[in-house]
């Protein structure tokens, strides 16, 4: 039997990849990066990097980068809350998660964005929990009814209460890491167990061009030491905060990510690192950062290819849209991004469900996009030879007008070869009219309600639940919010 070929998108030639990586290494050697974190600068200095007199610009030699690359595992593993189910982040595996840290929610009834609050975050987690093509959750909304100082940990607190899936998350304050790690460890039953079975990825974004802020650097160090994967989110904006050419932006992207990787490895050799990003093809008219631009997706697919060349797990912000509502733009940008990202073999694809430049989540879009992700997984599975001979046998007793509908071969394979339409409309016209001319957005809205109804909280041991509440309450207290209400009837 001939196996299915993994369909693959490769935008760069081998020679071009090598050239880009080489320039990135020269860039790190010659210009270096700004690192606004004393501990990281010290680690880098001790490892032989040249630290400027101002104590922030660090030049990294090739050897240091190469050693760090060699100690970085080619794949990271994530485990769900129960610890039973594992997900490999590496190779050609593709996992979708909704993008992180949006601030608004698209309200279906008014079709306008409103500030997200705790009930939105709860609904968001519940819906994602029911979506089979989202392997990971993301702490995807910032609840405006919670003080900003504790909102990073609060998002994770709610998520761990409501979901079984692994998380993609991140800190907003240096202080946020400890309670977040403590909650993850509480779920696992200790820091060592968390290290062996990571439950969350921590995103860390360098500030383009070539700078690591104190917050993001600390996140790299803390995550590495806790054994949690850091996802490096370089995000050059072509012609604004990075060179305008796609290849030029790739040079910067690789340099930024590699410098982050070095910091992780110096904090803890062998720490899992994901080569990710959220760059954009900067809009020269509006001054905005379109995630749905084809140029953005080309940068993503290309750096993912470079990440693979460097034998690293990869991530990208793809499968999201800059549209403000669930209109055709939302659909085509999302579909293009998920398909291209998956074909490029991006391991973690963050974005489905998102609108408006990573700032807005839509529950309806989540379920629509779940259908897109289902199509993508089917595409990735490719075309396999199922029978030998392939089809000759099915023509046995061939007659004019014969149908395959009742053929045993059809019954045997149709569910494996084809997937259902999901929410997509496949009615004949008259049936569509008779059913009320509903759009996919209306169907999605109904589906969201059905899913929220169907949702049942995955069981969480009482002592773990109590510990989560304690950790969150203590963090709120120490941050100056002793009376932060923690919703209990989730």
């Amino acid at each position: 039997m001939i196996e299915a070929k993994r369909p693959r998108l490769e935008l760069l030639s081998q020679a071009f990849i090598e050239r880009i990586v080489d320039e990135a290494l020269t860039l790190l050697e010659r210009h270096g990066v700004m690192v606004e974190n004393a501990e990281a600068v010290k680690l880098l200095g001790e490892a032989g990097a040249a630290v400027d007199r101002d104590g922030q610009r660090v030049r990294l030699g090739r050897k240091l980068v190469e050693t760090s690359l060699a100690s970085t595992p080619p794949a990271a593993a994530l485990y769900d809350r129960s610890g039973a189910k594992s997900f490999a982040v590496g190779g050609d595996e593709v996992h979708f998660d909704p993008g992180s840290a949006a601030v608004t929610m698209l309200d279906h009834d008014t079709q306008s964005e409103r500030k997200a609050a705790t009930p939105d975050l709860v609904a968001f987690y519940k819906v994602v929990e029911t979506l089979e093509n989202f392997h990971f959750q993301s702490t995807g909304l910032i609840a405006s009814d919670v003080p900003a100082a504790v909102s990073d940990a609060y998002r994770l607190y709610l998520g761990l209460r409501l979901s079984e899936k692994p998380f993609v998350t991140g800190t907003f304050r240096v202080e946020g890491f400890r309670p977040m790690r403590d909650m993850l460890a509480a779920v696992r039953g200790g820091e060592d167990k968390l290290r062996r079975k990571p439950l969350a990825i921590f995103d860390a974004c360098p500030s383009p061009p070539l700078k690591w802020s104190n917050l993001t650097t600390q996140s790299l160090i803390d995550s590495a030491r806790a054994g949690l994967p850091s996802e490096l989110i370089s995000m050059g904006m072509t012609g604004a905060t990075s060179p305008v050419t796609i290849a030029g932006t790739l040079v910067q992207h690789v340099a930024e990510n590699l410098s982050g990787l070095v910091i992780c490895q110096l904090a803890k050799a062998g720490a899992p690192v994901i080569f990710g990003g959220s760059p954009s093809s900067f809009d020269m008219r509006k001054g905005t950062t379109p995630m749905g631009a084809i140029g953005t997706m080309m940068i993503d697919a290309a750096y993912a290819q470079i990440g693979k060349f460097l034998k690293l797990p990869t991530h990208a912000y793809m499968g999201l849209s800059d549209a403000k509502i669930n209109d055709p733009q939302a659909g085509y940008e999302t579909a293009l991004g998920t398909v291209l990202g998956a074909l490029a073999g991006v391991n973690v694809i963050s974005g489905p469900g998102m609108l408006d430049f990573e700032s807005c989540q839509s529950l309806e879009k989540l379920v629509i996009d779940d259908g897109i992700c289902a199509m993508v997984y089917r595409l990735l599975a490719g075309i396999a030879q199922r029978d030998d001979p392939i089809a000759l046998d099915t023509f046995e007793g061939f007659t004019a007008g014969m149908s395959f509908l009742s053929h045993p071969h059809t019954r045997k394979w149709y569910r494996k070869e084809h997937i259902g339409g999901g929410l997509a409309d496949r009615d004949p016209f008259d049936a569509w009219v008779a059913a009320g001319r509903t759009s996919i957005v209306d169907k999605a809205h109904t589906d969201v309600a059905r899913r929220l109804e169907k949702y049942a909280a995955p069981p969480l041991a009482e002592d773990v639940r109590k510990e989560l509440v304690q950790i969150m309450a203590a963090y709120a207290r120490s941050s100056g919010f002793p009376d932060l209400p923690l919703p209990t009837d989730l």
Partner: protein
Amino acid sequence: MTKNELFPKMSEAIVAGDRAAATALAEDAVRGDLDLLEVIEQGYVPGIQKVGDLWEQGEYFLPELISSAEAMKAAMARLDPELKRRSLSSHMGGRVVIGTVEGDIHDIGKNLVASMLQAGGFEVHDLGADVKLERFIEKAEEVGAGMICLSALLTTTMTNQRRLLGLLKDRGLRDKYKVLVGGAPASRKWAEEIGADGYAENAVAAVKLAKSLAGRT
């Protein structure tokens, strides 16, 4: 070079976003002891106006706009000290205080508006990003500004535009300043709702608005 030869070249340098040429021509004007206000008005300003037109026609994009604004800035940097020496000022538009409101670190749009306002003849005091609301008022009082421009890129921070107007009112300073708002989530409707004096959707429109509010149209 005579004025008639110089002025079109100045305009061209601005339209081309050629910083070196714009500065060299300013140097020529200073050495040739020309009327510098006339140099600005008839040499450089037509250039920046042409740039605004090209933007509005969809011919020019941000890179051209910024390069031209910077060429203008470079020329002015050469001319301003000379004007000062002669007790003159090129800032016929008055003084503007501009910044991105607190909690918001986005400054690309704000920088562009600041550059274009400067190119448009305003004396611009740019406070940067994540600026405490108090600071806008302090600075405006300090430099005797007539206009305060507030940028916000996030829906979460645009409410600070409303708060600033409240602060001005509380201190009985509201009528002293024209307050302009901008940024992705802002709109004309938002400006009206919070009682601001105006909203502009891009840098070119912002300069037009500022000029009209300053009575310079």
